[in-house]
């Protein structure tokens, strides 16, 4: 198996607080890897470090060997590591299709001038973005809400739209921030299925942060567990479920009661 993403001894300090402390792991090509941990374990911070929305204090993040931490977020996206957001972050006053089309930005070959003047390349781009957007809409089953204004959508659809936006960028690695949060059982299972198909049919490597233990156990190839900013375990779902330190970290918390 080839390694696509490496996290090497990454540390993030906010003043005196160390949010992420010397965390290392690798993500293999085509893998679904989950990062879990109790509240405040540093999961979201780690995500922001990988997508360069925050700069690391020390250590580095590498995509296929190339360092990608401490760059501008749009450059990291350009290299193929794209995040979705915890809160339902979308372009509110665009329709679903417009949201997806505008997110094809990274695939455009024409310059802004080309688009302004309506060059051949620009027209071809516009056409292919439209087709690709329709593909994504079909893939995620969003046909019925294609022309709805994003601000009017319910939670579940917003989450799917967030994923569609991520997919439109044609990512190598997709970072999903709590994709199952606030969903009921059926919605969660539907989303689990979607994430799997994302990997199986589109070859996207998925790194996700999640609270929902049953979903994590079901979906992940491997799991990394954080507690107080440090990595305390790494392994297959089965190994993690039986890991002493993990059980200890979760003991007494509701997550443990539900999932383990």
């Amino acid at each position, binding site marked *: 198996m080839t390694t696509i993403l490496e996290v090497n001894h990454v540390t993030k300090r906010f003043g005196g607080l160390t949010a992420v402390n010397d965390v290392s792991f690798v993500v293999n090509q085509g893998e679904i890897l989950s990062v879990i941990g109790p509240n405040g374990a540093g999961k979201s911070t780690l995500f922001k470090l990988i997508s360069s*929305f925050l700069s690391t204090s020390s250590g580095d993040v590498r995509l296929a060997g190339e360092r990608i931490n401490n760059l*501008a977020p*749009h450059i990291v996206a350009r290299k193929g590591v794209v995040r979705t957001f915890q809160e339902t972050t979308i372009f509110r006053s*665009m329709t679903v299709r417009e949201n997806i089309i505008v997110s094809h930005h990274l695939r455009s070959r024409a310059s802004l001038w080309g*688009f*302004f003047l309506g060059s051949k390349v*620009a027209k071809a781009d516009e056409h292919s973005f439209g087709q690709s957007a329709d593909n994504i809409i079909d893939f995620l089953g969003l046909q019925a809400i294609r022309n709805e204004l994003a601000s009017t959508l319910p939670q579940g659809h917003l989450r799917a739209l967030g994923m569609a936006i991520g997919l439109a960028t044609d990512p190598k690695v997709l970072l999903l921030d709590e994709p199952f949060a606030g969903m009921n059982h059926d919605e969660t299972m539907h989303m689990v299925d979607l994430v799997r198909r994302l990997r199986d049919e589109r070859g996207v490597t998925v790194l996700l942060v999640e609270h929902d233990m049953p979903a994590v156990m079901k979906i992940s190839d491997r799991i990394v567990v954080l507690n107080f900013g440090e990595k305390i375990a790494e392994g297959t779902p089965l190994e993690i479920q039986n890991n002493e330190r993990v059980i200890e970290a979760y003991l007494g918390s509701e997550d443990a009661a539900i999932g383990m």
Partner: protein
Amino acid sequence: MNKQKIAAIAAFFLAIYIGVPWAIAASGRTDFYYTLTSVALLSIASAGVWLTFYIGRINIGQGAYALAGGYVSAILMTQYGLSFWTTLPVAGVFCAVLAVLIGLPILRLRGVYFAMVTLVLTEVMRLTALALPVTQGAKGITSIPLPGELSLFGITLIPDFATLENPKIGFYWMAVTFMVIAYAVLWRIVNSRLGHLCRSLQQNEELASSIGVNTAYLRVIAYSISSFLGGIAGASFIAISQSIYPSSFQVTDSVNFMLNCFLGGLGYVFGPMLGTLMLYFGWDLLFTTGEYQLLIYASLLIALMLALPNGVLSLLDKKKAQP
């Protein structure tokens, strides 16, 4: 483009190029030429402000660029003897470059903070004009020559304004032509990918950068285009008034440029054009009310904004919604 749109555009051209001069000739109110010429030019500056709104920034500093553009054109004409037609693009480009330099640091700010800095910008520009020797301080620059002949390969495109029998109508046609070009460019920007990216920026900068949009670059580009329009408007304005003073464009003007956008509608490309017409013309029409002018004017504005918070052009949407 469908037939309805083409008909609407044709009707608009007919109205501004032939309808208005005819109506003015019929009514004998030649003073309206000056009013409408001003409206056309100010609406170009407003179009610029509108574009900064489109990337999610409140711009109350367009007066600064109108003033800068005006001075650049005036200085080049009076001290270097260049023709107006040469100084006009120079003034625009000067403002565009200036906007890149100013925009790079201040466009990192958002919301009210950006708005406050731009508000100060107009005042800074006024004080700069007062202080610099080249702008001749409070005396300003007067007796600026009228635009000369513009010819290309020996063919006269535009005759010398000084030789015109009726320069007022000449200025009016020039101003509306500039306005038409400015709005055609703006319309094209908004309806091309550049516009879609601007919208993505306006709605969610984090998400825009996570889909790979270079947000800092795009903001500067939009602000620079906006200021280019401000410079062009300023330079054309002083060509007509034939004089410029540090007070030619003040904070009030900057605020008005912004109000024009609000009034017409931030969601509509032609909003600032309509907004400028209503604000400027409305003010002129209320002239007869004397000391109550400002009171009536302000009350009407408040009422309009309460009734139509999305601008006057949102009336069109309402009509569409109830077939």
